[in-house]
């Protein structure tokens, strides 16, 4: 799997250099060492995503949030523009983009609506195990179909009894001949009710003492397999247009061809997927924070109190300054994390830092934006209360803020122990 990761990183690197060489601005010294400049191609990707977000997502986001309706037309449009499924390799009909390019797109989409961005992100997360660990047939079959039609998929790991404690998963998969029979319950599955197939993590080793690194297996499960019972759409605090459900698996039969890598390899695959998707989640949080900052700044330039505009009051301008600090730093954090994994390196340390920091600042910045709006900020006619509600989940999903700290501590202290 490490080799597969390296290959992926290598190919993304080639793509990176290819696009660098096709650039017309001659600044060869910028190719070596630190570089904060985007390539021509990356700027174009960002432009398309930005235009889509500002012109097509933003006008309808509030309505989707109110009704909770799944934004099918927007998803279809994002798929048409090539903004979805960007990680799928070119051999399966995708763009084979690295994490950095995907992050640029994600931040722009999140600026428009994080509910929609999460629905699209659900695809990337569900696909990632197949991208990093799938064999040729699995990739052609399950990734190929995503590029032919706007389909959704989902990452099914969390259960009612186990979220952070992945090793405590109870869903079981028993081998019977050439098949596995799966029994268990999953919860809080993004795209649960809309997915065409799931990446499922289940326990294959019934020995309770077996270590997590050997006890779990990753499966690809078609959503229409008999025994898959999809629960009701959960009504959440924020990102309400995203489809979150509980799913019950009752004697669901999965052929052994749908096992990823092999029995016992599941835990590593599931965690490996996170290293690639954590920067994306961080990028989403930054998109939300940037939106909150922009809305608050625009309002502060219009609204007057005590005879002056809000921005002319230092209390407000200092608040905006701190919001700006947080957004800029969070952005740099996710860019570093994405760049590290695209270079083919293990990015766990940077990815966790990016996710932890951006989740936290997104909440702070959104809350501060509501504060700057004052009474209007609390009201649903203004855009910032939605941002505050949407922001909370960034401290929870894809590894809670607390789990991120566990990881960062372990990685950091580990460096000193050598």
């Amino acid at each position, binding site marked *: 799997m490490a080799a597969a990761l390296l290959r992926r990183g290598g190919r993304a690197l080639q793509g990176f250099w290819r696009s660098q060489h096709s650039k*017309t*601005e001659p600044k060869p010294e910028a190719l070596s060492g630190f570089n904060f400049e985007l390539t*021509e*191609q990356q700027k174009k990707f960002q432009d*398309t995503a930005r235009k889509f977000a500002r012109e097509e997502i933003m006008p309808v986001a509030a309505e989707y949030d109110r009704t909770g309706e799944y934004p099918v037309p927007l998803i279809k449009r994002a798929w048409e*523009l*090539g*903004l979805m499924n*960007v990680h799928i390799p070119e051999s399966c009909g995708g*763009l084979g983009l690295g994490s950095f390019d995907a992050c640029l797109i994600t931040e722009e989409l999140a600026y428009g609506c994080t509910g929609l961005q999460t629905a699209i992100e659900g695809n990337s997360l569900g696909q990632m195990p197949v991208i990093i660990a799938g064999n040729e047939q699995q990739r052609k079959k399950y990734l190929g179909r995503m590029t032919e039609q706007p389909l959704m998929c989902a990452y099914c790991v969390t259960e009612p009894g186990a979220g952070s404690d992945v090793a405590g998963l109870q869903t079981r998969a028993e081998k019977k001949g050439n098949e596995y029979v799966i029994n268990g319950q999953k919860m809080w599955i993004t795209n649960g009710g809309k997915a065409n197939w799931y990446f499922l993590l289940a326990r294959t080793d019934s020995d309770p003492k077996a270590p997590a690194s050997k006890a779990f297996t990753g499966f690809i499960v078609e959503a229409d397999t008999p025994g898959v019972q999809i629960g009701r759409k959960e009504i959440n605090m924020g990102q309400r247009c995203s489809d979150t459900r509980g799913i019950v698996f009752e004697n669901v039969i999965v052929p052994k061809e749908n096992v990823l890598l092999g029995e016992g390899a599941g835990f590593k695959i599931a965690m490996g997927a996170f290293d690639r998707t954590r920067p994306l989640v961080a990028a989403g949080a930054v998109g939300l924070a940037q939106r909150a900052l922009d809305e608050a700044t625009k309002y502060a330039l219009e609204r007057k109190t005590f005879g002056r505009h809000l921005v002319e009051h230092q209390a407000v301008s200092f608040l905006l300054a701190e919001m700006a600090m947080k957004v800029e730093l969070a952005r740099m954090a996710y860019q570093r994390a994405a760049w590290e994994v695209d270079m083919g390196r293990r990015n766990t340390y940077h990815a966790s830092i990016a996710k932890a920091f951006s989740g936290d600042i997104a909440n702070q910045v959104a809350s501060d934006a509501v504060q700057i709006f004052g009474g209007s900020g609390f009201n649903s006619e203004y855009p910032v209360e939605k941002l505050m509600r949407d922001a909370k989940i960034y401290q929870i999903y894809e590894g809670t803020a607390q789990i991120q700290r566990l990881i960062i501590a372990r990685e950091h202290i580990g460096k000193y122990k050598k």
Partner: protein
Amino acid sequence: MAELRALVGVKRVIDYAVKIRVKPDKTGVVTDGVKHSMNPFCEIAVEEAVRLKEKKLVKEVIAVSCGPKQCQETLRTALAMGADRGIHVEVPESEAERLGPLQVSRVLTALAQKEKAGLVLLGKQAIDDDCNQTGQMTAAMLDWPQGTFASKLTLEGDKVTVEREIDGGLETIRLKLPAVVTADLRLNEPRYATLPNIMGTN
């Protein structure tokens, strides 16, 4: 019709959303490090040409840009929108300042003849100089009919019907090809470049 070649001129200008600043020595505006993009009216012209190609009324869409090296970015945008070929008429940075409608229309005239284009599509004006001259001059040099400020374009056989937005309202004229048409705002809504198109893998 199916043999028709459309030549579309695209200009690289400072992006419309940028706040323009005058240089400290007052010799012009700051362009270094400032975001540039395709002139919005040129985008509309490219979009129209690509739509005509999709309707199979035009065989080939050739985008042209005159200026320094960076014009290639603008041409790539045109290609990502669906143009078939891009021609960069390179003008060194030092001389680019003196490049105006008269020079550009001479270039377009020569290219239209060389590429055997039957339709020259341009934006009505550029947002940096607002000249509104290139289309008209090109038509005069080629001795072709012109339909400027087009808000609607219909190709039928060897004629093109153009609905123009003029001061008094709307005017409809019919031109015999080959002709020059300049695009106005309401001609169409330009598509954006999809990611596969940007990567050139489509």
